[in-house]
């Protein structure tokens, strides 16, 4: 298998603060999710891969080459940064076209590639308007278009879904999948599990600057399932106790806290699927109205805290 990205004991120090800590991993072709909560080291890793930062120790190889001081590698690598930065006086077309020219294409080729990239990102409608007039979603699409304009072999997307609406997310998901299907290897950094889950099953989990786990989504989910999943439920105060009793009797609950005054139940379960499936029937039995139900594990932070506990 060809190695697309390889790090060996990769470490980045910002003074005494560790950005990336002794990371060693390899990624093959395909789409990979780089998951971690804010401050996990995703952006630092992205910057090391794209030669914006130099490793303090260890090495990083992209498509077999060291990226630091090697601009030639960007013929094969595309990067969509996290931050919302543009030459606001330009239109999306001018912006992407200029960057295509900097990728080494002559003007007519750059024009064709620009039109194609903007079309793929559904940006043709607004591509001749100045960027300063764009919505966040339009700006996000423009950023992705500049990253794919030169048809890279390896594409890095740092929080690409940030600020996009549901339609934009769907379109971007489809675009990433189609690029992946056409042979482009892609690394998508995100702190939202389900966003990346829609694009790939391969994940690299990082936390505190370290690689926590690699593998497919099923392995990660099975790791997560070894730890209780926490769900908070809000119902009418008079139904709190009967509902709690029924849950303990009929659902696989490993822990439960209730506040009868506020009408809230904090439930821990190792089988969230079964719990969600059985809850409506339990609620119907006692004619309880459930006003709100939130999974405390929606935040990737919580998932990672579980995983830190595992290792």
């Amino acid at each position: 298998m060809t190695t697309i990205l390889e790090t060996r004991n990769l470490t980045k120090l910002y003074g005494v603060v560790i950005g990336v800590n002794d990371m060693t991993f390899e990624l093959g072709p395909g789409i990979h999710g780089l998951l971690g909560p804010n401050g996990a080291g995703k952006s630092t890793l992205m910057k090391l891969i794209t030669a914006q930062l130099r490793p303090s120790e260890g090495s990083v190889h992209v498509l077999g080459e060291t990226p630091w001081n090697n601009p030639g590698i960007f013929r094969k690598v595309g990067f969509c940064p996290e931050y919302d930065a543009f030459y606001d006086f330009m239109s999306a077309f001018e912006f992407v076209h200029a960057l295509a020219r900097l990728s080494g294409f002559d003007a007519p080729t750059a024009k064709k590639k620009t039109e194609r990239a903007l079309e793929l990102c559904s940006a043709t409608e607004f591509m001749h308007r100045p960027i300063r007039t764009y919505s966040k979603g339009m700006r996000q699409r423009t950023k992705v278009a500049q990253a794919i304009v030169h048809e890279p072999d390896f594409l890095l997307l740092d929080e690409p879904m940030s600020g996009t609406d549901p339609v934009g997310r769907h379109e971007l998901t489809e675009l990433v999948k189609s690029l992946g299907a056409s042979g482009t290897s892609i690394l998508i950094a995100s702190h939202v599990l389900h966003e990346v889950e829609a694009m790939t099953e391969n994940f690299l989990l990082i936390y505190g600057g370290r690689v926590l786990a690699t593998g497919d989504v099923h392995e990660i989910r099975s790791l997560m399932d070894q730890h209780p999943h926490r769900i908070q439920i809000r119902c009418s105060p008079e139904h709190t106790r009967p509902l709690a009793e029924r849950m303990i009797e009929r659902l696989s609950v490993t822990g439960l806290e209730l506040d009868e005054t506020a009408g809230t139940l904090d439930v821990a379960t190792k089988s969230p699927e079964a719990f969600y499936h059985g809850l409506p029937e339990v609620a119907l039995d006692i004619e309880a109205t459930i006003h709100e139900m939130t999974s405390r594990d929606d935040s990737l932070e919580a998932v990672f805290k579980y995983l830190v506990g595992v290792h």
Partner: protein
Amino acid sequence: MFTIAAMHMRQILLGSRRWLLTLGLIAPVFLCTAIAFGGELNNETEKLIVPALVLFACYTIAAPALAALLYGTSVLGDEIQDKTLTYLFTRPTPRWQILSGKYLANVGFLSAATIASLLIASLVLQPRSGILLGLVVSTAVATAAYNAVFMFLGAVWTKRTLIAGVFYLAVFELIPGFMPANVRELTITYHTRCLVLNLSGITDDIPVEAEPFIAAIGDASTEQSLLVPAIVILVMLLLTTRVASRREFALTDEP
């Protein structure tokens, strides 16, 4: 390189500093107008020297240095502040080409703007034609040299670059520029004023009593005064490229 130059030219034309530059280039025109209509030049020597001196001070020292201070120091700083540098540095374009493109745009635009202002001021003060030629060449050389120096300072100090630029002008240009002996020959100011002197032919017509004053300006040949700034430009561009290639330009405050 020309794509970068074209992009940078638009940044100059649309950036907020253009108003400061406009002000800086209109002010000398007003000053020359005030001198032309307000002051009275009594004899031929005054008529020869005063316009030359005023235009020299405004256009080969002040205007190029200030324009370069505004634009040369910010070549990388603006891209870092706007976080757009990532787009340029994650392309297969070598950094020397990116920097050279920006440098060419700076020098081309600022020379043209400064010389345009000089020509307008010359219409008012009407210096001798030879003097005007010397001033135009000298202004272009000064703009090119100061921009190279300030671009280097901007690569080394991406923050507080203006302070570094002002410090450079005061300590390395203005004070040594008027010092005797070899110290002044290392400054850009010295060579630009020698250029004006040599190209204008003013020394042929100067009265005997003004000769010590002319001697104090400088005695470098035209070749020397073109060669030294050319070396400064080359060295500064090489150093800037070296700094830009070796340093990390982290665009966020992470972690």
